């Protein structure tokens, strides 16, 4: 069964969703166990796949069994999966995070969307299937279909939230559709010049026919980049993200914030590495007096600074975290475009780290809101005394965001800043350090509020939203919420300590690539 593990990663959540449709609608209590079961199977399959990759290196899984045509590598006529160490790592993150959030959702979904439990879990599972499918596929068009699955499910998962969530979901639909359509167009422009849809085949044709200078390919590159940037909320295309994440239900935020942007960054790296090739990605100029590497790194420096500054002025916890995510997206995009191996390693490694960091923080914030009923930072008054254990986990997450050892955030910075120095992109280095300091200010301000109790001058705002049912605040943190939180917090330290192993895996996938120093 080992060789069938890759397909099981995607199928397990799909069948889980079907099972809920069959039995979960009538027996609501079964929804969560089915979800957990499906995600566990998916996680097991991911681990199996990961082991295969580690022992045998990158491999292809042929869906429908259509062998490649022709001599040598040939071209693919069916749809394939392609797993290498990087995608296996991202899959592992998806499986682990989704399982943790599912455990966490036990009380939250019942409290926040009591009448829609089966639908919620179906969407949840299908979102996971879509994300995993995007990560593993080797077909440019198939990626679009799965992208749409993950988009549609995330629109819905956001829109089941409060009054404001619906509005932000609509904006997300508009932006998301533009993004997905750009991607589709980009694939079309590639197809018209290459006649193939398989990612590796596209690359092979581009190289063989010397299409690097072709305007269609260049436009396709721009379109696909714009598409992934919109989807990953790369500044200044970020406008949909903060409201969408902060007004959505707790579980949605906790699932989407760690995964969706990160998977899109993976897709971007995949496009750069597999479809266009690094040489193309870093050097293509579009006839302009700059090259991509310098341009994108500059953009990401701006993104990092802008995201951090915007986060600084937020008073709502989730919103503040959302802007931090925007800054973090800048880290990864910048790292990937530094045009050296250390930067790329840092970007991929940070995908893993940032997923767990955001997870940890969103889970902790979810616990705070569930306990205090107050989404504002000011609502955390005196929490160190009230719930020291949760605060400790939050502290680990925050330290990781700031980038203090021994958490993994420090080691991400290590690679990213190191890559920046190596590439001589000093503004990127400066932006990273600036953002670390801003994060330090943000989080230590929170710590101060939570550590130095003070009489609140204004009480928690009355709930004016008629549709947001007054969710009762919990007296104690249930184990289903604290356990995933703690696992994610411990993961942050584990990922930091084992950073060398992880980067070696990443390096094994990147090893065969040639990194060119950016020209000029």
């Amino acid at each position, binding site marked *: 069964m080992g060789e069938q593990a890759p397909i099981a990663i995607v199928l397990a959540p799909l069948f889980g969703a079907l099972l809920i449709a069959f039995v979960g609608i009538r027996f609501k209590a079964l929804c969560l166990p089915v979800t957990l079961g499906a995600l566990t199977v998916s996680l097991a399959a991911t681990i199996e796949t990961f082991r295969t990759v580690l022992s045998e290196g990158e491999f292809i899984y042929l869906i429908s069994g259509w062998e490649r045509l022709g001599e040598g590598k040939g071209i693919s006529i069916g749809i394939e999966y392609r797993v290498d160490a990087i995608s296996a790592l991202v899959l592992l993150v998806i499986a682990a995070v989704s399982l943790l959030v599912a455990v966490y959702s036990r009380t939250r979904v019942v409290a926040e969307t009591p009448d829609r439990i089966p*639908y919620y879990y179906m*969407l949840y599972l*299908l979102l996971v299937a879509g994300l995993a*499918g995007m990560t593993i596929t080797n077909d440019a068009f198939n990626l679009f279909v799965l992208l749409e699955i993950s988009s549609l499910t995330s629109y*819905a998962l956001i829109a089941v939230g409060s009054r404001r969530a619906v509005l932000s979901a609509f904006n997300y639909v508009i932006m998301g559709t533009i993004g997905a359509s750009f991607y589709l167009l980009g694939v079309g422009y590639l197809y018209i010049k290459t006649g193939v849809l398989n990612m590796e085949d596209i690359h092979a044709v581009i190289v063989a026919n010397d299409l690097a200078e072709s305007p269609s390919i260049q436009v396709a590159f721009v379109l696909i980049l714009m598409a992934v940037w919109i989807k990953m909320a790369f500044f200044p295309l970020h406008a949909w993200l903060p409201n969408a994440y902060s007004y959505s239900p707790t579980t949605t935020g906790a699932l989407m914030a760690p995964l969706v942007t990160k998977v899109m960054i993976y897709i971007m790296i995949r496009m750069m590495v597999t479809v266009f090739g690094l040489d193309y990605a870093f050097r293509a100029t579009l006839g302009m007096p700059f090259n991509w590497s310098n341009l994108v790194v500059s953009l990401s420096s701006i993104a990092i600074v802008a995201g951090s500054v915007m986060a600084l002025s937020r008073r709502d916890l989730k919103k503040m975290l959302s802007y931090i995510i925007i800054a973090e997206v800048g880290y990864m995009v910048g790292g990937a475009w530094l045009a050296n191996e250390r930067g790329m390693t840092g970007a991929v490694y940070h995908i893993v780290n940032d997923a767990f960091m955001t997870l940890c923080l969103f889970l902790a914030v979810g616990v705070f809101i569930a306990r205090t009923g107050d989404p504002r930072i000011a609502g955390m008054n005196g929490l160190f005394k009230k719930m020291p254990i949760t605060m400790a986990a939050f502290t680990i997450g925050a330290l990781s965001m700031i980038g203090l050892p021994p958490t993994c955030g420090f080691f991400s910075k290590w690679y990213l800043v190191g890559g920046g120095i190596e590439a001589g992109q000093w503004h990127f280095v400066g932006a990273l350090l600036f953002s670390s300091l801003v994060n330090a200010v943000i989080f230590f301000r929170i710590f101060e509020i939570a550590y130095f109790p003070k009489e609140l001058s204004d009480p928690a705002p009355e709930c004016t939203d008629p549709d947001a049912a007054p969710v009762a605040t919990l007296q104690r943190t249930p184990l289903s919420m604290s356990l995933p939180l703690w696992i994610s917090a411990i993961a942050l330290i584990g990922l930091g300590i084992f950073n060398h192993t992880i980067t070696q895996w990443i390096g094994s996938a990147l090893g065969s690539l040639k990194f060119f120093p950016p020209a000029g």
Partner: protein
Amino acid sequence: MKGLALFAVVLTGALLLYATGDFPAWGSVHSPANGGELSSHYIENVRTETKVPNIVTAVLADYRSYDTMFETVVVFVAGIAIIALLRDFGNGSRGYPPALANNLPEEPDLIITQTCNLVIPVLQIFALYVLAHGHYSPGGGFQGGVMLGASYILIALANGVEVAMKAMSERKIMLLAATGILIYSGTGLICLLLGENFLDYHVLSRILPTDPIMARSHAILIVETGVAVTVAAIMFSIYANLATRGTLKGGL
């Protein structure tokens, strides 16, 4: 905002048009997409590999069947998403602007109902034909499924959603929609259980009384049926929820 939007739009347009200069001539037989190995392979070998004359159907449900499965899942997602968003689970119509309260005529119109009664059976038969004849002519699961769904929508239009819901209850919608995908993915799963890769239909010849190539052809029909079932159920569900704002009472 408007100026910015115009700028962005014009910029995108200019970029897209810039690339058209590079495109192969329209209708060229030798363009990479048309004359390339991939498309030629489909056209030239579809007969020997799948025995399905309609190349589009063969590519859709066999070569790229994995895509099509998730395409069906997209429909399924849209269906459950709309239920999750709109369906009013007995909380009353809280939050409705009063102008929207349903005030429908009590009695359905005689002419409309009778016409519909005439049309609907024909429509449904035709839908099944479109579905089943997808191997030989334009058609297939999606087209057939949409027609089938349309027949129920027609009932709802003529008699109100409640009447249609008697034929296609909410519970049934959910079951059918899931069954459709289960038929599709289950076919793939059987291939997997028989020891081949997911959706590798030829291995079905071990349980179907045919040779491996015909097994592909038959399997395409099976999965197309699955698609049709899901699409029909979800199309009606989308209509019912949108038209009644989630109450599933009354209708347009």
